[in-house]
């Protein structure tokens, strides 16, 4: 979309540039043509003026010639010569001015024809002057009468007027052509400017549309960023909260562990400091734990006793139940009752026996008995060293 608009805008600007170039070239060509036409018009007018002056000087020369013939005054002779000379110069100028250009070839021919007529006229004038100088007024009068002076003058005037008329026609045709060309140039300039303005308006419309689309896209991006930011903040807050909860949980766990460990150590200290022998047994009378007093008084190591029956270290008088002898600890634990201060015999590792008293506290875990704690202490006055 963006590239498409850029390409369109570039294309339109190239088109506008092309139109501007065309208009500029057209205008320059028109100006050049106008300069050329202006030059042509100027020299055409100069030709017309020259031809008109040719007639004027011809008449002036003729008049001076007549005066000379009548008076023989040298000043009149000089005047006629001067007028004729200027006339010839003007004709030469006109010829020179019409030398270039195909459209003036006809004019050039007419000037040549006019030159011939004037040349004849000058020849006649010379012969009259010569006759006046040699034969006097009468000879000159005769020569005047024998030459068709009037016809020659009329022919020259007609030729000159025709030439001027043709030049005027050319001027008119050139004016028309120039006018048409100016109109065409004006039309091309106006059209080019109008088209360029339309193209500019189109470019403006395209850019405005593009800017609008860009603004909308920027706004959408801004909104998306704001939403993302909000989500990130929300997520961060959740993570912070979760992290806090995790830290709290971790602390709680460490605290529980520490508290439990402390409690166990404290309990262990209490048990270890009891002077009486303590056996923790299962319902099947297997030992799971003993206190240091047991080790001290029987020389058994804990590993010699743990997982063995308490009967290995403690002999109890059996009870009869349903006609069969039974260990009183098993019966008491089955019934969930305590035994207090009953006689028994302690067997040390060396095999020595000592009369002792034992007690049993069944261990209740919820509704059932899972084992028991047997405490043993020597009977009053008895010791392993003195009893077998």
């Amino acid at each position, binding site marked *: 979309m963006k590239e498409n608009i850029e390409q369109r805008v570039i294309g339109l600007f190239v088109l506008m540039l092309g139109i501007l170039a065309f208009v500029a070239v057209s205008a320059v060509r028109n100006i050049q043509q106008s300069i050329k036409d202006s030059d042509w018009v100027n020299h055409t007018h100069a030709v017309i003026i020259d031809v008109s002056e040719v007639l004027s000087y011809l008449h002036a020369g003729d008049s001076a010639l007549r005066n000379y013939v009548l008076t023989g005054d040298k000043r009149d002779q000089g005047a006629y010569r001067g007028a004729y000379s200027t006339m010839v110069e003007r004709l030469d100028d006109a010829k020179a001015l019409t030398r270039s250009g195909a459209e003036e070839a006809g004019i050039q021919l007419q000037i040549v024809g006019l030159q011939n007529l004037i040349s004849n006229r000058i020849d006649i004038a010379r012969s009259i002057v010569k006759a006046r100088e040699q034969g006097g007024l009468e000879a000159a009068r005769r020569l005047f009468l024998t030459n068709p002076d009037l016809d020659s003058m009329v022919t020259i005037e007609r030729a000159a007027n025709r030439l001027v008329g043709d030049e005027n026609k050319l001027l008119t045709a050139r004016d028309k052509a120039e006018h048409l060309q100016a109109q065409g140039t004006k039309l091309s300039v106006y059209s080019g400017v109008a088209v360029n303005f339309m193209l500019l308006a189109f470019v403006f419309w395209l850019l405005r549309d593009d800017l609008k689309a860009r603004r909308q896209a920027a706004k959408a991006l801004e909104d998306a960023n704001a939403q993302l930011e909000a989500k990130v903040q929300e997520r961060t807050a959740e993570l912070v909260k979760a992290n*806090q909860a995790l*830290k*709290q949980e971790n*602390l*709680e766990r*460490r*605290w*529980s562990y*520490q*508290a*439990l460990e*402390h*409690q166990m150590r*404290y309990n262990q200290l209490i048990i270890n400091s009891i002077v009486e022998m303590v056996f923790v047994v299962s319902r099947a009378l297997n030992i799971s734990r003993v206190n240091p007093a047991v080790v001290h008084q029987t020389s058994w190591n804990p590993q010699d006793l743990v997982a063995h029956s308490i009967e290995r270290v403690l002999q109890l008088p059996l009870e009869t139940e349903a006609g069969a002898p039974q260990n009183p600890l098993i019966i008491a634990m089955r019934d969930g009752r305590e035994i207090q201060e009953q006689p028994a015999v302690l067997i040390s590792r060396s095999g020595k026996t000592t009369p002792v008293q034992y007690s049993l506290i069944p261990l209740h875990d919820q509704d059932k008995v899972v084992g028991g704690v047997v405490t043993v202490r020597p009977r009053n006055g008895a010791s392993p060293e003195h009893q077998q």
Partner: protein
Amino acid sequence: MKKHILSIDDEADIRELLQEALTMRGYRVSTAADAETAKRIVQQDPPDLIIMDFQIEDGDGLVLIEDIRQAGRDIPILLLTGAVFDSDVVRETIEKKVSRYLDKTASLSQIVTEVEKLLGQAPRS
């Protein structure tokens, strides 16, 4: 201004854990392992609450409580210990000397709740 809590316990792990948990809650926590340090802190920077164990490095917690009371400090005390098990004994003896009693097996959240309660109420005379 942050409330100041003094934690007295002979076990470094317990002190550190309590300090961490209470600092997270926005309290300023000082710690002491022995009675001398505890008494010095109470003298120089009186706390708003004391959390302590019976067992301290150079003495007895109950004696320390008596010393603090005799020094005229009406600071609420939360006793945190695993040494006493009988609730009747606790009610009849210890609770008369301290503001609250909690077993060390109580959870941290329970301890923090008690702390918040104690700091929100008037000190016990």
